[in-house]
């Protein structure tokens, strides 16, 4: 049973300055004790057993890496454990809960909630997984011609057509060529396949960069608050310091350069060397899409301050408002005339989001530009210890970056699937946004992009007191009540960070459209009764 608690006393913001204290404590030498079998260990001088551990087993909560204890990841935290328990109860005793099913709105996992994969992508992957059927005539009847052709093309790029072999540690060269071409087509600026590192999802790439940049708790990483907790967890795991910068809820989660500057100076005055700036665009959990001039100011800021810009762009295909468009940071930087010598930029992309939603495949990449060959060698070296990322995920990443084009046999159906999914996501984003805004004391910024809504709930004092009595953070208390009443699983805002004294929760826009009305009515009903119970 997972026992990790979101509502621990420490707030996300203070934590970063407290790691090192814990670290020191657990490094003090253990008390000397004699080994169990002195008589059977001839030659072992008893005076040398100064560090034989006491009776405590070698791997226990007291003796594991304290950074593991420190890190937290709310997306699959306590509330999910509770939900799973309720789900089991429901299965064992149908009708035992005031709802028929648990709806997991805690995690950006589209296909688990009924979204269909893009057929063309799956056709190509299936053929690459079982290439021997490409020689059979019956295969023509089961697969589209362009999928077969693409599979052949890909297999020709893989030495020996061996999709079961470890590839180059950065990923199959031919696939990186395809991705680089895709990046160039998207941005209008060239991309170098040697700058691309294919990884098992974007998350391992983020970890690699944290590992590269963090030397000690004196190294800080500027992260948006609210943020996707991979960043806080990763920074904790690698022993660094999270330097928060607040997004402005009042202006649609705006990112102000003045805030960046303030936090940077603040950190410096505390002896922290800030190494990088994390920007999530479109935002998670906040969903805002940055305006171009905002992006230019960010690039300029990083250049001036010598910070690495870590651009999490995994939601680049999820933009729902006509007035905003996704622009990659690379494109912005290059269009400002900034090249490799001017700015260190790492861009992350994934196959898990967009309209493809292939979370379970673990495919993604980072494009690393602007750093020396010696540093690239180091990144390569660490990548090589894990040999390579999974081939199927690599193939998928290349398909995502170069999907069917006008004229291809599969283009029509592909296009219809893509538009269907994206327009549905846009509708669901709007419907849920409106629903939240209609709740008493709740305001919700528009989800311009990504897959989430992050409504702010104004909890009455009575509720806050009740939460304290239950030893829970107020938003966790609300979310648990919500779960128990409706079966809907959302993640308390404290898991992402928020201005102290404000409360939020993150809800995905992913349940299928036909389920949305029921969700809205259940949520509305629950909220009303909650406010009735706790209204001041």
């Amino acid at each position: 049973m997972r026992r990790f608690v979101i509502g621990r006393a420490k707030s996300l913001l203070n934590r970063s300055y407290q790691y090192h204290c814990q670290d020191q404590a657990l490094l003090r030498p253990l008390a000397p004790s004699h080994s169990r079998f002195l008589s059977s260990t001839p030659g072992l001088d008893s005076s040398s057993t100064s560090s034989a551990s006491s009776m405590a087993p070698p791997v226990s909560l007291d003796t594991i890496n304290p950074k593991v204890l420190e890190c937290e990841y709310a997306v699959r935290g306590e509330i999910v454990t509770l939900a799973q328990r309720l789900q089991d109860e429901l299965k064992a005793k149908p009708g035992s809960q005031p709802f028929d099913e648990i709806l997991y709105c805690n995690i950006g996992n589209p296909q688990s909630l009924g979204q269909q994969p893009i057929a063309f992508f799956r056709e190509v992957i299936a053929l690459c997984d079982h290439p021997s059927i490409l020689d059979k005539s019956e295969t023509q009847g089961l697969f589209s011609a362009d999928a077969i052709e693409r599979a052949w093309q890909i297999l020709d790029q893989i030495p020996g057509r061996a999709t079961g072999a470890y590839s180059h540690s950065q990923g199959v060269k031919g696939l990186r060529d395809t991705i680089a071409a895709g990046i160039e087509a998207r941005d209008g600026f060239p991309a170098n396949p040697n700058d691309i590192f294919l990884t098992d999802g974007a998350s391992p790439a983020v970890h690699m960069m944290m590992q590269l940049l963090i030397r000690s708790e004196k190294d800080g990483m500027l992260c948006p608050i609210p943020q996707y907790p991979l960043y806080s967890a990763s920074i904790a795991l690698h022993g660094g310091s999270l330097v928060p910068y607040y997004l402005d809820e009042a202006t649609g989660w705006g990112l102000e350069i003045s805030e960046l500057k303030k936090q940077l100076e603040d950190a410096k005055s505390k002896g922290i060397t800030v190494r990088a700036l994390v920007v999530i665009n479109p935002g998670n959990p906040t969903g805002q899409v940055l305006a171009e001039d905002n992006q230019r100011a960010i690039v300029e800021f990083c250049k001036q301050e010598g910070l690495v810009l870590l651009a999490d762009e995994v939601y680049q295909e999820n933009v729902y408002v006509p007035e905003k468009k996704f622009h990659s940071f690379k494109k912005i930087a290059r269009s400002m005339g900034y090249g490799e010598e001017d700015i260190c930029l790492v861009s992350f992309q994934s196959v898990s989001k967009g309209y493809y939603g292939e979370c379970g495949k673990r495919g993604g990449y980072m494009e690393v530009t602007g750093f020396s060959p010696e540093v690239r060698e180091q990144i390569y070296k660490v990548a090589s210890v894990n040999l390579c990322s999974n081939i199927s995920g690599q193939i998928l990443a290349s398909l995502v970056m170069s999907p069917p084009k006008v004229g291809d046999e599969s283009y029509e159906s592909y296009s219809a699937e893509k538009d269907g999914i994206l327009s549905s996501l846009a509708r669901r984003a709007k419907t849920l946004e409106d629903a939240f805004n209609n709740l008493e004391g709740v305001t919700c910024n528009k989800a311009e992009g990504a897959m989430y809504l992050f409504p702010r709930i104004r909890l009455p004092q009575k509720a806050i007191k009740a939460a304290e009595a239950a030893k829970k953070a107020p938003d966790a208390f609300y979310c648990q009540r919500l779960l128990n009443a409706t079966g809907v699983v959302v993640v308390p805002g404290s898991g992402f960070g928020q201005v102290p004294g404000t409360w939020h929760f993150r809800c995905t826009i992913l349940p299928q459209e036909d389920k949305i009305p029921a969700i809205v009515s259940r949520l509305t009903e629950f909220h009303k009764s909650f406010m009735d119970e706790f209204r001041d």
Partner: protein
Amino acid sequence: MAPKALDYESLNENMKKVQYAVRGELYLRASELQKEGKKIIFTNVGNPHALGQKPLTFPRQVVALCQAPFLLDDPNVGLIFPADAIARAKHYLSLTSGGLGAYSDSRGIPGIRKEVAEFIGRRDGYPSDPELIFLTDGASKGVMQILNTIIRGDGDGVLVPVPQYPLYSAAISLFGGSLVPYYLEETANWGLDINDLRHAVFQARSKGITVRAMVIINPGNPTGQCLSEANLREILHFCYQENLALLGDEVYQQNIYQDERPFISARKVLMDMGPPISKEIQLVSFHTVSKGYWGECGQRGGYFEMTNIPAQTVDEIYKVASISLSPNVPAQIFMGLMVNPPKPGDISYEQFIRESKGILESLRRRARIMTDGFNSCRNVVCNFTEGAMYSFPQIRLPPKAIEAAKKAGKVPDVFYCLKLLEATGISTVPGSGFGQKEGVFHLRTTILPSEEDMPAIMASFKKFNDEFMEEHEDHRGYSRM
């Protein structure tokens, strides 16, 4: 100008310390030569499919169907997929919550972990708990996770065999721990000496290091030796006495080329030893779909099984696993198929057995061919490859060769391997990448080149080696003191 964040000087020192020779200098040079048009035989990494081994048919059929479930609705699917593959695909899809494209449970799909537990139970005769089995993106990720959990700082030591598979040294460097080596004895068939172990621990402790865990690789990599039951008992007793967790890397458990020492898992021996030991020793066992006769390296599928780890620690490990959301789902299905393969009576059984046996018997033959081939070379001595996928011959370099290496600014075995590469296109990994006794040199090659290619490869090696030795010998004596 202030140093920039990604300047070499400003990088994490631990990262800089990491070495991983398997894809290091030799491999990079080989890749360069390949680009220039030279034919290279890559024997640097245990990557069977890259050297012509064919994937087993049944698992590929099942996974392809899972990737494209619309096929299952097509009336013609039976024309190219057998019924049992179709049934299995449907079964695995039913275990997922949304097919292959959805994040699974962070520990892996429960139904597949159950299959793994059942496999372990059949193999060892003791029940295994699916809740204590975590599927991972390859065994390497699992090893990293566990080491990261154990290592707090450089005051923590991990016992690692020398020679070792350099994932261990790399991971320990990366996490800032201390590697405590214990030497395997080449003249005793790479055997392990408990007194040696005790000495290693004693030395480490006298330097103020807390030795936390011991790694065993069984069958060994690069050395190939298979541990006997008596060996395992000794090791477990030792861990019990010294209060060490045991990490059992058992990824080559299907690769056994002799009959005197079949594979026996550390867990089985532990359970056989009964309480209190069987309830006390903290054991983590690792397995993979990359090796054996499956060789599905590119899928990145593995698992670790925890024994006697406290529930709270398991929770913490689960928490960290959840940050990466889930292991890749296709590989989880490969794992399920590996531990629960076609059974007698299944439509695909005959073909599956034929393919599997073919691969294993061929590996056994190749292990012998390579060992004998190396032993026929001048100044080369090679222990038999009892298991795993490698040959690790000792190259007795004459003093002149060692001098030439020094002049070239290279470690002697790197020098030899580079010359071998340039002369023959055979890409190996120098023994220094795995660790060896001072002044003793080896190289690691895999036994994976196809049987048809092997005679030519061994002849090519012999020609190079014997000429190299001729050129560098002046009868002053050999490298081994």
